[in-house]
């Protein structure tokens, strides 16, 4: 069975992605600091269905120094590592002029350094298999502005640049690297958004609605599928037409 690592797979978009991939017959290893009740329920349902698998490994992606050992143990247990979905992220918002420096560093650590270092070690194994798929979860704020999200936006834009150049580097070995840029979807990350703000986002979207986690999961599933074998270095926007 092909194995796919989904970071931040315990809830929100990551849980939706992991559940969808497992239902499609893949062996998913979700990584987050804590397992959630929603995750345990989803994993039980996957076992029940008897197709694919949904595992959990607790790890704090802020511990960059531990990532090499994590990948090494995942490789031993779940080889071959076919896919990596860099989804874990934090959405710290705030006006830059009064944002504590530590918060800026933490944003970059979790949203940029961690996916880069994780990709480094996972891609190595993909290289020796001559096959693999990397999907980075960016955001529409990588390319459009949003008040209070300047530091966060910088981290999401970083992933787009990373996606393009890594795609060139590993393309000759049959590995693809793409990004998905979701619009605002209802998860814990966006829970503090007020009703008025959600309405505004909906009204600004061509389809007059918000994106659901299942829409993002569908896009990731497609990029991991054989149908996407000739797609690399691109960003797939899933935003109900918010930036159209």
């Amino acid at each position, binding site marked *: 069975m092909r194995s796919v690592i989904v970071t931040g797979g315990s809830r929100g978009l990551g849980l939706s992605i992991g559940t969808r991939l497992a239902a499609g017959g893949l062996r998913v290893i979700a990584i987050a600091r804590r397992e959630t009740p929603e995750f345990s329920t989803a994993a039980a349902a996957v076992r029940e269905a008897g197709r694919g698998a949904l595992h959990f490994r607790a790890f704090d992606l802020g511990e960059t*120094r531990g990532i*090499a050992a994590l990948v*090494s143990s995942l490789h031993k247990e779940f080889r071959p590592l076919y896919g990596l979905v860099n989804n874990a992220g934090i959405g710290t918002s705030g006006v830059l002029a009064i944002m504590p420096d530590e918060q800026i560093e933490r944003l970059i650590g979790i949203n940029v350094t961690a996916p880069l270092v994780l990709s480094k*070690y996972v891609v*190595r*194994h993909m*290289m*020796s298999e*001559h096959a693999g798929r990397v999907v980075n979860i960016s955001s529409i704020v990588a390319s459009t502005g949003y008040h209070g999200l300047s530091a966060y936006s910088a981290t999401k834009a970083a992933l787009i640049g990373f996606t393009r150049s890594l795609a060139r*580097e*590993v393309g*000759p*070995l049959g590995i693809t690297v793409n990004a998905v840029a979701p619009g605002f979807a209802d998860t814990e990350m966006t829970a503090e958004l007020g009703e008025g703000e959600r309405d505004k986002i909906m009204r600004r979207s061509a389809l007059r609605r918000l994106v659901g986690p299942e829409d993002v999961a569908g896009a990731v599933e497609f990029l991991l599928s054989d149908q996407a074998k000739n797609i690399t270095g691109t960003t797939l926007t899933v935003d109900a037409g918010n930036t159209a």
Partner: protein
Amino acid sequence: MSIRATITTQFEQVAVEQERTLASLADDLKLIDCGLDSLSFAIIVARLEDALGVDPFSSDQAVDFPVTFGDFVRLYERFAK
């Protein structure tokens, strides 16, 4: 298989896969001149981790990439202990 033999085999195999001409692997051969590119080295390091169970380049001690083939072999011999 000895560590040296394992390394030699990987160099030869990756050179074939990547369609590169490999120089004869003497200890004083500079890795820059051995005919492999950086991508090939990345594959070799990943395969050696599987074969020998060590990766000197992801350890906590900072390790510079070796200059000669002999340095490369000795580095793995040191870490594999």
